[in-house]
């Protein structure tokens, strides 16, 4: 008789998982911010029996600030050439100066994009992998086993975050790194729920 109850619980789990997967999708592309059980992704020291459950990145809107700054930088040369007189600078220096300005603008955009792109969290059925890169020349990869999780908190604060439904998920751990932060991720409540489910299964 108890077997009947076990079957029913598994059925509910399957339904819940398909619901999560359906909402986010499994396919990864360059701008994916969240994926449930992403297909084809495998990281370097992933175990054979280890499955990636969740892939997250900060919400796309977090790029707005540097994007606007880059637009402003791109508009600086035409406006300065209109309003200021650069007649005293030889034409070849003006030309190379302009190229350097746009090269630096591109470098700024590219660096900011890469920082967003590689700032990911990967949750597997065994651990959490947190990749932080404050700038392109520095990388910090933290791993913590799911068994060391002590507390999970989802936090959505602020006008923009409330409207676009993104926020932080803080995971307190008993490991050497006291906290792992999923920064500005979409649907923080859902992510914390998935983490809670995994944590309970351990």
């Amino acid at each position, binding site marked *: 008789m108890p077997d009947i109850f076990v079957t029913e619980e598994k059925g509910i789990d399957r339904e819940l998982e398909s619901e999560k997967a359906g909402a986010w999708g499994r396919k990864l592309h360059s701008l994916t911010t969240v994926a449930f059980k992403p297909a084809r*992704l495998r990281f370097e020291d992933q175990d054979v029996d280890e499955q990636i459950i969740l892939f997250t990145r900060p919400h796309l809107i977090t790029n707005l600030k540097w994007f606007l700054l880059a637009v402003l930088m791109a508009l600086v040369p035409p406006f300065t050439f209109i309003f200021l007189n650069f007649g005293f600078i030889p034409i070849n*220096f003006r030309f*190379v100066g302009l190229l*350097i300005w746009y090269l630096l603008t591109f470098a700024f955009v*590219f660096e900011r994009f890469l920082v967003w792109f590689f700032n990911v969290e*990967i949750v597997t059925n065994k651990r959490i992998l947190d*990749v932080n890169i404050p700038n*392109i020349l520095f*990388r910090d990869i933290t791993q913590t086993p799911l068994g060391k999780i002590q507390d999970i908190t989802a936090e959505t604060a602020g006008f923009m975050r409330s409207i676009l439904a993104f926020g932080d998920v803080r995971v307190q751990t008993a490991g050497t790194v006291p906290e792992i932060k999923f920064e500005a991720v979409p649907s923080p409540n859902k992510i914390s729920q998935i983490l809670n489910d995994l944590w309970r299964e351990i």
Partner: protein
Amino acid sequence: MENFTFVSQFLENPNLVLWLVVKILFVIGLALYLVFPILVIRQIKAFDRILGFYIFDWPLRLAAGIHLAVAVLVFLLALIVL
């Protein structure tokens, strides 16, 4: 003696010497800048290896390659045109 020539040239035509100094600064700056796109390519390769992102980040690798090519071109242009 060389210093004397440089000073006398500066006194004769200060503008020419000034732009020569600017050119040297441009070329040194661009030569130093060349390290940056190379580092970016190395970082992308490292992340591809660690996180397995090579399955979807080909546009980034392409952009990084173009960035390096453009940086080299601007450096050569500064050497030739200035």
